[in-house]
C-alpha cells in the first residue's frame, strides 16, 4: 500500500482529556534534565555555557586557571580543547571548533563541574581574551552600508521574489492607494522550559534526554556532526516544556551537551541554559519591515498587491523570514509583486518562531487592508469578502476548500460586528476609548513525507502504536491515540501509544502545524497495512512498520487554512495604556481531531498574538550586539492579567480529505496569524492612531489620545 485511505471518525472529533494530564499537574512528568537515578542518570556533571563577550572577533586565549582552581570544577572546554566535530559547515552548530566569534553570547567555552553552583561560578571565573573587530548589529546600519541582498530563497523553500500581471498598468488604473511601511521587532520564542539536555557517551553510543520538537531530526543532525552513524545516537524527549519553533531545529545547546559528554566518557552531563542564554542561542524571530502598497478601485477591489519585506540575518548562518509569502495568495488582484531582502549582521542566528512569515507578514498586510477599507469607506469585513479569489493566485490551482468568507461572516456574527461605527473614536467608556478591529488569518497546509509508524498486536485485543513524534504540549500523545484507534477500528483504551524516542520509527519535526497531519497519516497507513497483513483478529505479537510517501493532494489543489480574528481594544485617554478586552477567532482548519485540545492551541496562538501586539520587544543594543531585554521581566510575555476576559475560538465543521485521511489539517500556528493586526486595527478604531510598529504600547498612543 502506498498511501493511506480515509478513515471513519469515531474517536476523532471527541474531546478526550490529555492522557498525560495527571502526570503534568502533579509534576511527575519528567523533562530533559530531570531524568535521574531511576533512569540511570547518577552522579551527573553540570555543564555551563560561557558566552562570547563581544559581537565579532577572535578568541585569543581562554584562561581557565582560576575556574579550574575552583572547588568542584572538573574541566573547561574551549575551541582548542573541545572534541572535534567531523562537519563544521554550519557555523551556528560548529561550536568550539575555531576561534571565530560571530555574535555576542556565542558559546566560547564550557565549564563542567560536580554541581551547578560550581559550574556557574566556574563560568564566571573563565577569562576569555578576545581580539575584538568592528561589528554591525543594527539593521539600518547594514542597509546604509549597502549590505541588503536577495537570498537564493526564503525559509521553507519559498521563492525570494514572485510577481504576476502588469503592475504598471494596475498602478496606473488605481484610484485609491495605500503605501505604508510596517515593522515588527525581534521576538523570542521563550518556551517556559529553557533548552536543556542530559547527555551520555559510553565510547560507542551517545544518549540524550533532550528538550526538542524532533528527536529524529536531532539525531540526524548530531550524528554527521560527530562523525557517528545515526544508529549510535539515541535521543529521547518524553516531555518538552514548549518550543514554538525554537526547539524545531537543533541549536548550540544540544551540540554543547554532546561535546561535554564526549569529553567525559561514561559520565552523564546535564546542560540547561539560562533564560538569558535562550535569547542568543536558540533562534528568534528577526525584526521585519514590510513596505506594502495596495492599489485599488474606488470600491476597494484590489488592482495590485505589493509587499517588499526586509529582515536581518546572522553572518554566521542565513535565515530568511518568508514575510511576503502570504501576500502571494491571500486576495485576488490582477497584478502582484513580492520580494524578500535580508541584511547580514554580527548577531545571534534567527530561526523559526510560531508561523514564521505569516505572523509578521499578515500583520503588515492586514493592517494595510484596514487602511484601504478606511480609504475606500468600505467595511473591513466587506473589503475582504470583495477581494476573495476563486483560485490560488500564486499557483493557479483550485482551493481545497477556502472558507475565509464564512469565517469572516460567522466571526462577525459571533463577535457582534454589525452596527460598528465606521469612524474612529466613536465610542468612549469613562476614561477608555473603545474600538473594534478585524483581520484575516491564513496558514498553509504543510505535510512531511517519510514518517513511519509501527503497529503491534498485543494480548486482549490491545495494540501498541509507536512513532518517534514529540508532544511539546500540543496534545500529540492524546490525538495520535485517537487517530490510531479509528484507523484500527478499536476503542482508544485499546491503544498503547509510544513516542518521543529515536528507537521508535522515524518522525519529522513537531512544527509547521504539520505534526498531527504527518504523523497521523503515517499511523493510519501503518494501521491499514497491519490489517492487510494480519487481518481483523490478529494473534498477539504480530507487527507492521510502514512509511508514508505521500498523501495530501498538493498537485491538484492549493491547501491552506483560514481564519478571521476580531478584537476589542480599550485605550486609556490619559495614559495611552492599551488593553485588549475581547478577542475572538473563527477558523477553517479541516476536521478538528480533539475540540478540547484544539481550542487550547487556538487560544494559545491568540494569546501569543496578543502578546506580540502589545508587549513583546527584543531590544538590541547595537553598540554591543546583544539583546538588552533578555529576561522575562524586561521581555514581557502576556501574563494572566493581560489576557482578555472574553477570549474565544471556534471552527467550521468540515473534513478535508485532500489533506489527511482523517480530514484534519493543523491548528498550531494559525491562531497567532492576523491576531496582532486585528488588535492594531481595533486600537486605530478606538483612538484614530494608526499602529504600524509593534508592539503598540502607551507610548504609541499617549500623544494622540489626549483631549
Amino acid at each position, binding site marked *: 500500500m502506498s498511501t493511506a485511505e480515509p478513515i471513519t471518525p469515531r474517536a476523532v472529533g471527541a474531546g478526550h482529556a*490529555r492522557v498525560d494530564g495527571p502526570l503534568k*499537574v502533579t509534576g511527575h512528568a519528567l523533562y530533559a534534565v530531570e531524568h535521574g537515578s531511576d533512569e540511570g542518570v547518577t552522579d551527573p556533571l553540570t555543564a555551563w555555557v560561557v558566552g562570547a563577550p563581544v559581537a565579532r572577533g577572535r578568541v585569543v586565549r581562554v584562561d581557565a586557571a582560576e575556574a579550574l582552581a575552583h572547588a568542584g570544577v572538573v574541566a573547561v572546554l574551549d575551541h582548542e580543547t573541545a572534541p572535534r566535530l567531523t562537519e563544521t559547515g554550519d557555523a551556528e552548530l560548529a561550536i568550539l571548533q575555531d576561534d571565530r566569534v560571530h555574535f555576542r553570547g556565542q558559546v566560547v567555552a564550557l565549564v563542567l563541574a560536580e554541581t551547578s553552583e560550581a559550574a556557574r561560578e566556574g563560568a564566571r571565573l573563565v577569562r576569555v581574551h578576545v581580539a575584538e573587530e568592528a561589528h554591525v548589529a543594527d539593521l539600518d546600519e547594514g542597509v546604509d552600508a549597502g549590505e541588503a541582498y536577495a537570498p537564493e530563497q526564503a525559509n521553507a523553500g519559498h521563492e525570494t521574489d514572485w510577481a504576476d500581471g502588469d503592475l504598471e498598468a494596475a498602478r496606473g488604473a488605481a484610484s485609491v492607494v495605500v503605501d505604508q511601511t510596517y515593522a515588527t521587532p525581534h521576538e523570542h520564542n521563550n518556551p517556559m*522550559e529553557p533548552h536543556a539536555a542530559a547527555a551520555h557517551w559510553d565510547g560507542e553510543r551517545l544518549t540524550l534526554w533532550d528538550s526538542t520538537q524532533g528527536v529524529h531530526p536531532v539525531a540526524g543532525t548530531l550524528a554527521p556532526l560527530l562523525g557517528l552513524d545515526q544508529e549510535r545516537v539515541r535521543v529521547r524527549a518524553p516531555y518538552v516544556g514548549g518550543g514554538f519553533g525554537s526547539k524545531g531545529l537543533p541549536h548550540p545547546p544540544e551540540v554543547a551537551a554532546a561535546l561535554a559528554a564526549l569529553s567525559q566518557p561514561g559520565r552523564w552531563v546535564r546542560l540547561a541554559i539560562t533564560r538569558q542564554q535562550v535569547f542568543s542561542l536558540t533562534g528568534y524571530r528577526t525584526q521585519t519591515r514590510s513596505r506594502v502598497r495596495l492599489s485599488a478601485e474606488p470600491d476597494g477591489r484590489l488592482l495590485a498587491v505589493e509587499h517588499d519585506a526586509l529582515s536581518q540575518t546572522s553572518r554566521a548562518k542565513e535565515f530568511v523570514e518568508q514575510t511576503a509569502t502570504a501576500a502571494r495568495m491571500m486576495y485576488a488582484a490582477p497584478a502582484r509583486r513580492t520580494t524578500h531582502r535580508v541584511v547580514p549582521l554580527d548577531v545571534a542566528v534567527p530561526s523559526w518562531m510560531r508561523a514564521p512569515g505569516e505572523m509578521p507578514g499578515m500583520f503588515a498586510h492586514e493592517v494595510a487592508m484596514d487602511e484601504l477599507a478606511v480609504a475606500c469607506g468600505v467595511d473591513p469585513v466587506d473589503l475582504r469578502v470583495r477581494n476573495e479569489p476563486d483560485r490560488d493566485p500564486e499557483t493557479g490551482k483550485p482551493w481545497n476548500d477556502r472558507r475565509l468568507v464564512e469565517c469572516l461572516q460567522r466571526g462577525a456574527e459571533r463577535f457582534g460586528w454589525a452596527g460598528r461605527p465606521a469612524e474612529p473614536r466613536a465610542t468612549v467608556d469613562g476614561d477608555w476609548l473603545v474600538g473594534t478591529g478585524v483581520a484575516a488569518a491564513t496558514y498553509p497546509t504543510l505535510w512531511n513525507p517519510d514518517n513511519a509508524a509501527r503497529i503491534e498486536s498485543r494480548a486482549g485485543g490491545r495494540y501498541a502504536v509507536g512513532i518517534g513524534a514529540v508532544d511539546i504540549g500540543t496534545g500529540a500523545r492524546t490525538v495520535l491515540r485517537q487517530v490510531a484507534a479509528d484507523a484500527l477500528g478499536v476503542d482508544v483504551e485499546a491503544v498503547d501509544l509510544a513516542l518521543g524516542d529515536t528507537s521508535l520509527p522515524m518522525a519529522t519535526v513537531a512544527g509547521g502545524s504539520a505534526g498531527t497531519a504527518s504523523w497521523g497519516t503515517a499511523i493510519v497507513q501503518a494501521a491499514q497495512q497491519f490489517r492487510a497483513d494480519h487481518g481483523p483478529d490478529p494473534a498477539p505479537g504480530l507487527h507492521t512498520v510502514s512509511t508514508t510517501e505521500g498523501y495530501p493532494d498538493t498537485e491538484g489543489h492549493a491547501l491552506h487554512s483560514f481564519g478571521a480574528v476580531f478584537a476589542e481594544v480599550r485605550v486609556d485617554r490619559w495614559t495611552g495604556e492599551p488593553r485588549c478586552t475581547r478577542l475572538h477567532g473563527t477558523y477553517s482548519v479541516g476536521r478538528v481531531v480533539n475540540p478540547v485540545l484544539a481550542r487550547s492551541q487556538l487560544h494559545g496562538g491568540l494569546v501569543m498574538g496578543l502578546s506580540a501586539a502589545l508587549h513583546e520587544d527584543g531590544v538590541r543594543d547595537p553598540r554591543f550586539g546583544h539583546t538588552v531585554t533578555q529576561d522575562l521581566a524586561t521581555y514581557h510575555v502576556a501574563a494572566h492579567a493581560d489576557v482578555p476576559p472574553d477570549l474565544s475560538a471556534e471552527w467550521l465543521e468540515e473534513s478535508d480529505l485532500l489533506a489527511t485521511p482523517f480530514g484534519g489539517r493543523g491548528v498550531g500556528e494559525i491562531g497567532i496569524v492576523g491576531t496582532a493586526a486585528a488588535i492594531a486595527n481595533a486600537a486605530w478604531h478606538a483612538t484614530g492612531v494608526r499602529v504600524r510598529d509593534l508592539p503598540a504600547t502607551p507610548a504609541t498612543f499617549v500623544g494622540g489620545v489626549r483631549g
Partner: protein
Amino acid sequence: MTALRLTVDGAERHLDVDTRTTLLDALRERLEVTSPKKGCDHGQCGSCTVLLDGRRSLSCLTLAVAQDGAEVVTAAGLGSPDALHPVQQAFLDHDGYQCGYCTPGQVCSAVGMLAEAAQGHPSHATDDLEADPELTDAEVRERMSGNLCRCGAYAGILAAVQQAAGAARAEERA
C-alpha cells in the same frame, strides 16, 4: 557545606548543601524532587512556585540554608496522579495547561492564592481594601499573574481556579 533539614511533601529529608544552593536547586538537583520547575531562575516566571510553610513562594529566590527546618509542599505533595488535589483535578477538567512545564507552579500558586484570598488579603484588583475580597475573574487573573504560561492556557487556568474556588466556598458553607 551546611547541614539542613527539610520536610518535603511530608517526608523529612536531611542534606548537606553548598551555601549558594537555592531551595529550587536543592529540591531538583539534590533531592530529585523535580515537580517545581526552573523557567528563569530570577523569580520572573513562577514555574518554581512551592508552598513554603504554607505560603506560596518562589523557590528559586530563596537560599536553601535559609530554610532549615522548613516545610515544603510541591505539586507532587498536593496530590498524586491517582489521588489528585481538587485544584489539580480542575486543571484537568478545564485543560488548564499544554506543555505542563509551568503547571506544577501554577497549581501551587493557585492553592496558595486561594488561601490568601480566604484570609482576606487584598490585591491590586481589589476595590475595597477593608472588605473580604470576592474572587472575581479580574481578581484571579491579577493574583495569578506571577505565573507565566507561554502556551497561553490562561483561559483554562482561570476556569480551573474558579472551579476550585467555588468548591472551596461550597465546602465552607457546608
